[in-house]
């Protein structure tokens, strides 16, 4: 399970980096004569309504999709982890304010918020991902805080305080190493969520200008021609699902392994 998951993610990573070079055809090249064809040796996933090669569009679209997902998770990490750690020590007022801000953000629905933000900041994938990232922040905030809260009351932290250690030192030497695995697992799961969000947004046409290929974009255009090619949406949908599942599987595996390790240490 873990190997399969890693295998899938490696393939996705390679496609993301070198997708444009791997794609056998120009993903933007239209060929009305070849519109809506089924799979063939030249076009393994067939062609879309403009005669573009679907395989090339998916491969070339990987980069934009994955980058967008990573951007949003990066923004979420930055806006979540830093305040999460800070809230442990900055006193009650700061703690209260941060907790309320997190609650407020959590009530906002992903897609609607992203649509609103792109409406204000302009239609671009980066803008949309910043919006999604901001919505991920409460998740990272809570996870970091929960993991850290337990640690600040640990006796070895008390022992470090008795040596006169500063808070930043304690954070660095005693807290960070134990919060990191939890944050990493959450990040993997969030990346899965982000991929779905990217796909949904691009499906709706938000974030990208039409000809540029993305996973969600391919799915959207395929859905327009269900009558002619009912099988076509399965391919981009499967790609999205398998990638998200691989991220979740990896996260689950890490979490359960961590539990076992903790159990043995007892």
């Amino acid at each position, binding site marked *: 399970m873990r190997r399969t998951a890693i295998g899938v993610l490696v393939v996705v990573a390679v496609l993301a980096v070198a997708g444009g070079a791997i794609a056998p055809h120009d993903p933007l090249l239209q060929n009305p004569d070849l519109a809506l064809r089924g799979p063939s040796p030249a076009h393994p996933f067939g062609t879309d309504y403009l005669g573009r090669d679907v395989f090339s569009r998916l491969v070339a679209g990987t980069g934009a999709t994955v980058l967008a997902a990573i951007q949003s998770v990066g923004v979420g990490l930055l806006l979540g982890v830093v305040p999460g750690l800070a809230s442990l020590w900055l006193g009650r007022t700061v703690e209260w304010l941060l907790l309320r801000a997190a609650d407020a953000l959590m009530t906002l629905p992903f897609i609607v918020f992203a649509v609103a933000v792109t409406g204000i900041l302009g239609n671009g994938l980066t803008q949309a991902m910043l919006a999604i990232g901001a919505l991920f922040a409460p998740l990272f905030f809570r996870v970091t805080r929960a993991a850290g809260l337990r640690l600040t009351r640990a006796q070895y932290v008390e022992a470090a305080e*008795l040596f006169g*250690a500063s808070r930043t030192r304690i954070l660095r030497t005693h807290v960070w190493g134990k919060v990191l695995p939890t944050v990493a697992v959450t990040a993997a799961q969030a990346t899965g969520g982000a991929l779905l969000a990217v796909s949904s947004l691009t499906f709706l046409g938000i974030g990208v200008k039409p000809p540029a290929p993305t996973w969600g974009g391919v799915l959207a255009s395929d859905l327009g021609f269900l009558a002619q090619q009912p099988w076509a949406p399965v391919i981009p949908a499967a790609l999205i699902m398998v990638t998200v599942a691989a991220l979740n599987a990896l996260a689950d595996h890490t979490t359960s392994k961590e539990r076992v390790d903790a159990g043995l240490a007892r």
Partner: protein
Amino acid sequence: MSALLSIEGVDVAYRRHRILSGVSLHVGTGEILGIIGETGSGKTTLARAVVGLAPVTAGRIRFDGTDLTGLRGRALRDWRRTGQVQYVFQDPLRALDPQHTVATIVAEGLTVAGRPVGDRVEWALSQVGLDPALATRTPGRISGGQRQRVLLARAIAMRPRLLLCDEPVSALDASNRNHVLRLLADLRTAAGVTVVVISHDLSSLAGIADRVAVLYGGRLVEHGPTEEVLTDPRHPYTALLTASAPSVRREHPIPAARLRRVGDGPVSEDGCSYADRCPFATSACAAVPELTGDTRAVACHHAGEWLAAVR
């Protein structure tokens, strides 16, 4: 002997809940003081108060003339970095970072203070009788007795003048227990370290402590030279403790049963904290007894009388 540590009328309270009331105790340079008391007697809180981990609401704690109770923020951190007073936690599993190696753990105080580590880790490990080869292991990979010693090594790596040990031997079997206590005694002789040992094992304390102090319900009820206090207790609670200590010889000078109260004693908010359990309590015990005496002190309204009742 001049007092290295002076605890003067210390109260400790969390919110409204008072843990220690008016505790006064002096520890002389190079002395080993044993502190005895049951769960909830405040013995751990007393040690934590000395190192600034418990809120002192009244009284003063002085170390070699420095008032520790007034230290805050930067001053407190600077004082702690001198490493002169070291507190050794009770539970090594909780007090040692599971992700750090023994070497990192033992060197932590020196690194925090920005002092050179040099061969201090090896030195500290050898002082507590640990193989320096353990330095690369993490706490999860060594035995319980070894962890206890790592805890001690971390403290003595700072070359402290005062060592406060919280139940350093309660989790160990008799042989290992004596081993660790002997280490403390050796530290005193070799390095002149002053030691305060909190323990519920009277027998092992008797082997090393010069003086003992008995805490009950957050108050000091008796203190004095170890052998005198334990062979001739003046407080009924101390007597109960000595009579209750398990021994391979079955005879006890006073049977423990005669030192237990049958039925409830007089309970009073601001009276003697032991009255509820004391078989000798009377109406006089509704007032807090004062700790009287100098080198040998006891806080009991009936200190002179109760012994006759059981003899």
